[in-house]
Each structure stands twice: as C-alpha cells, then as structure tokens.
C-alpha cells in the first residue's frame, strides 16, 4: 500500500486532522495567522457533506460552532490572539453547557492587534483563565506539522469523550511552516464519538450514573427535547439557583479533568536521563530547545528537554519529580513569563526555575536558550 505522504502547513494539517476525526461543521472569522484553517475547511467540508460558514465576527464564529455541535455534528472554530479574546465568553458557555467543540488558537504577537504575522506563545494563561469563573480546561500544543494533525484528532476525541471544549494552542511558526507528513490511513488512529442516550431509558440531559462524570448527549432533532443554558442548571438542564446544586455540578465538571489526568496529560522527554539541566518547553519553542540541547551536548553540557504536549491540565506529578532530579529547570517560551509561573508553583523551590523568552515577534533561538542554560549552570 502506498503511503499518503504530503508536504503541508500546520494549518492545513489541522484541517486534515479535523476531517480525519470526523469534523462536519466549521464556523469562524478570518484572522491572521489562522485563516488557512478556515479556507481549507471551506474548500473540503462540503465535499464530505459537511458545512462551513464564515460568520460576521469572532463571537458569532464560536456561537455558530456551538450550535452546530448541538445538532450532533463534530464542530470546530479557529482564530488567533484578538479573536481568542473575543471568544472567551462563549468558551465559558461551552464549558458550563458541556458542548464538545475544538477551538484552535494560532498564537501571534499581542497584546491587542500586536504583531499579526509574528509568532508568540502569549495565551497560555488566557487559555486557562480567559473566561470568567472556575471551569475545567483542556489545552494541547503541537510542535510539528504531523503533531498538529495528531493533536487535532486528539482534541476532537477528548472533546467528545469529556463533553467539553478543547483548545489547540498552535502558533504562527507551527501553523505556517511546511513539513513532510504522512497522513494516517483511516482506522489507524482511534476516533471517539460522544455517547448518545441509551434507547429505552428516560433521558436526563445533565444526569450521570453513579461513578460517571460525563452526561450522554442527545442531538437537537433526535427526539429528546431538552434545555441548554449558560445558567447553572440541575441534571434536567433547567436553571437552578441552588448553591448545593451549583457546587455539585461544578465539582462534577472539574472532576472530568481532575480525575482523568493520566488520560489527558501527554509530554515528551528528550535526552533527560543523563542530563544535568532540564529545559522545559512546548510548541515551536521546543524545536529551538532541541537544537540548543544538541549544541550544548557538543560542548559537553548535558542538557535535556521536557516538552509539554498537554498544556492544561498541567503535568504536575512529573514536573514535581523533575524538580527532585534537577537543580535547574530552564523554561523556554515565547512570552515574557507565563507557563514558568505554573512550573514555579509546582516546583515550590525544590529546583531553581529560570526563564528565557521574549515577546517582540522574533523567534526564540537555540543560541538564546543555550546561553541561558550556561548562565544558570
């Protein structure tokens, strides 16, 4: 069998991955550097019987995507910095209403309009805290074009499995660079579909069986007439002001993430076994970190890499262990210090945590990361 090998951009791979996962609805608004995701979705979705719509603004983009998801379709929206800010209220809506949805943020230089064509990793904390109130968060960040494909599939799978919006945090580098990628054959990657109501059983829209955390989801039009709201609601889906109920419902939603850390958290370790210093990175910056490690090792400095693939929830247990193993952890990220605070929170002084980063639109170079490593050693 001939392999399906292609040269493509990260943004194109995102759409290929989405279609592989079963995406049948896309709604969004054009914004650099994510626009190719909309363009490719517009081209390909109708060829598989799916639907694409360019909405009037970013808020409408995510709103329509949620509407599409409620009819039973796997649904996605993509954006960049300013659009990610605009979508925040409805991200919270998707969380409390438990809507499976993939939200791609191809990060660019901010704040505000910032540097539209330049890379950044500036929405690490916004992904977690951008929408108001406490809520569960799942966010993934790819480093390569192939990984963009794989993590888009994974984002859909997790969204379906946990009935929650999943964020894919790529950046301008990963989104726009072209790499050779082998597209998996159908069936090669696991595809997860949301659980639907059990036939013959009374459907309780937000009810779960003892020990379960994720309610089954009926599609609008399938015969189960129910109510969806952004207000706190009880298991019937109707609004409830009860503090006892709000506490119970939020606790269940948080546990969807907190009780499934092993399923959710993915990371890669590169040359860490014999290393004397740990570089902590993710996304495009981890590419520079790998090169920095190769160069440092040529100079006799044994550096290794911890690369977070799942950004949220945080790989707390593993990072704690790393803090026991290493005296120094150098966090390399394309911002002025975001994920480093999470590392510090978890490490709690057990290792020295340093930061190397910038937010001027430039890429983080291997030389800059290597220089920081030498400085702290």
């Amino acid at each position, binding site marked *: 069998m001939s392999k399906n090998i292609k040269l493509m951009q990260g943004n194109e791979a995102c759409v290929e991955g989405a279609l592989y996962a079963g995406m049948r609805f896309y709604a969004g608004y054009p914004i650099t550097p994510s626009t190719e995701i909309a363009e490719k979705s517009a081209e390909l979705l109708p060829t598989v019987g799916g639907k694409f719509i360019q909405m009037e603004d970013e808020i409408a983009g995510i*709103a329509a995507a949620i509407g599409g998801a*409620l009819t039973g379709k796997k649904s996605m929206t993509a954006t960049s910095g300013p659009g990610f800010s605009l979508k925040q209220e409805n991200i919270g809506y998707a969380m409390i209403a438990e809507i499976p949805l993939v939200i791609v943020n191809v990060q660019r230089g901010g704040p505000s309009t910032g540097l539209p064509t330049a890379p950044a990793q500036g929405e690490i904390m916004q992904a977690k805290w951008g929408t108001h109130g406490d809520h569960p968060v799942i966010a993934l960040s790819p480093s390569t074009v192939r990984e963009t494909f794989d993590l888009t599939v994974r984002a859909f799978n997790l969204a379906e499995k946990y009935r929650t919006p999943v964020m894919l945090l790529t950046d301008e580098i990963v989104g726009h660079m072209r790499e050779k990628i082998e597209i998996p054959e159908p069936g090669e990657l696991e595809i997860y579909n949301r659980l639907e109501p059990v036939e013959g059983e009374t459907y309780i829209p937000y009810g779960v069986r003892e020990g379960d955390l994720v309610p089954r989801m009926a599609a*609008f039009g399938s015969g189960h007439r129910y109510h969806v709201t952004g207000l706190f609601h009880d298991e019937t889906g109707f609004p409830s002001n009860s503090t006892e109920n709000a506490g119970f419902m939020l606790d269940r939603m948080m546990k969807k993430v907190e009780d499934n850390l092993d399923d959710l958290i993915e990371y890669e370790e590169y040359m860490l076994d014999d290393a004397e210093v740990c570089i902590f990175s993710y996304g495009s910056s981890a590419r520079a970190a790998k090169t920095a490690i190769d160069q440092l090792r040529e100079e006799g400095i044994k550096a290794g890499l911890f690369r977070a693939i799942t950004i949220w929830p945080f790989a707390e247990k593993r990072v704690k262990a790393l803090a026991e193993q290493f005296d120094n952890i150098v966090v390399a990220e394309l911002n002025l210090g975001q994920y480093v605070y999470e590392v510090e929170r978890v490490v709690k002084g057990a290792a020295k945590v340093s930061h190397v980063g910038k937010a001027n639109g430039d890429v983080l170079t291997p030389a800059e990361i290597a220089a920081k490593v030498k400085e702290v050693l």
Partner: protein
Amino acid sequence: MNNPIVEKYFRMDNLPHIWCPGCGNGIIMLALAKAIDSLGLDKDKVCVVSGIGCSSRAPGYLDFNTLHTTHGRALAFATGVKLANPELEVIVISGDGDASAIGGNHLIHAARRNIGITTIVFNNNIYGMTGGQYSPTTPNGDLGTTAPHGNIDRPFDIAQLAAAAGATYAARSTVYHANQMEKMIETAIAHKGFSMVEVISTCPTYYGRKNKKGSAANMIAFLKDSFIDVKVAEKLPEEKKAGKFLMGEFKKEEGVVEYTVAYESIIERLKK
C-alpha cells in the same frame, strides 16, 4: 383548568414563569405556541433559541429543543443550528436590547443571508431584567434608570431594520393585537427565508412606572389606540396619522433563495 395549547406545548413543571404581573411577554409566548399548533409542526423538529433578558427566558417554558445562549448571540447560535441541521424549524426569541444592541450585528447578518430562521423580538422598549435602563428602542425623551434626565438617543425601528438588511419577511404587531400577531408568527415560520416579527410588549414594572404610563391595562389600551396597520395608514390623510405608530406586514418577498438551500446545492454540485 388549563388551556390545551399550554398543556401541549409548555413545560408545565417549569411554570409559573418569572415575568412580572402585567408583562406582555406571556401573550407573545402563547401566540407562538398557537402558531406552531396551527402549522402542525413536529415538536421534536422545532428549536427555540434565545439570548439573555426577560423575553429570553421563554424557551425554558416551551417543550421543544431549547437553547438559552449568551447575551445578544441567539441568532449566531441559531445560525449554526439551522445550517448544521436544516430540517429543524429554528425560532429565535429575543428582546429589544438583546436583538438590536448587543446582538445588532448578528441580526443584520442573519437577515442579509436570508437564512431560514424566524426571529420574534419582544420589544418592551427597556432593559427589564437589569431594572429599567434605556434600550435602543426607548423613545427619545423618555426616562430610564440610565436616562434620568431623558433619553437623547434616537430609537431603532427593528422591523424596518431587518427588512433593510435583507430579511424577506418583516412585520410588526403588539400584544393587544394578539390574533393578528399569531397569524404573523404563523406566516413568518412558514416563510422560506429570514423572517422577523417585532411585537411591541409592555413593561409596566420599569418602563411604565418610570414614564408614568399608568396600569398594565392602560399600557395595553395605548397599544390599541396608537397602532394602525400599514395598509390602513396608506389611505389615511396625514392629520389622522399624527402620533400613530405603524404595524402590519412591511415586507414579504418570495423566491429569494434560502441560505441552507444554497449551501445544499453546493454539496450536490460537488458530488458530480
């Protein structure tokens, strides 16, 4: 003893509703249920979507697929529902603030696309849920809690706004003219394309009290006396139209291709 329409289409466990005594919203909600009954729609295939505000609580009481969204965004959510599953009859319930202030952009674009959604605006000329602030339809000179010295804004004509933006059906009625309103809603739902029915409602608690409009009954009597049908108005001399407001069907355009039909034709073309 209950009205059989109420028993058939309302979620009885969720009643009574939260609206104030004298509020006109219940009249519109019942008219919608009656219109759906007259059309013989399958309850499983009706989706009612709303935003935030007093009127937007209506879907919680109605026994369909119901979606209570974020402030102003009902039409954007509804657009996703309708495009993803065109076999659903999608009806949006929105208030004057929800539809024409925070949601104004979605209103004009849904109208422009001519997507098959019926929008019913419960226009009570005020923000009721937050306690009486002036809205885009509060008359110039009237009072609101945020217009304590008189409103200097000029009001929107929501039905005409939708018509100008491309809605292929646009009409206005009032909660006094309940039978006419019900027929309009029925026509709007049956219409292929974007349809708008603006219904002038009454808010005696905030708008009425703030502006000394008298009792709820007085406010409804005002609607009876002040609104004239656009067809009647055409034949009236100018002096008889002074101080009156227009209601009726402002626009009814057939044959404009509906949005989801246009999209389906792309899918069909690509199959060849």
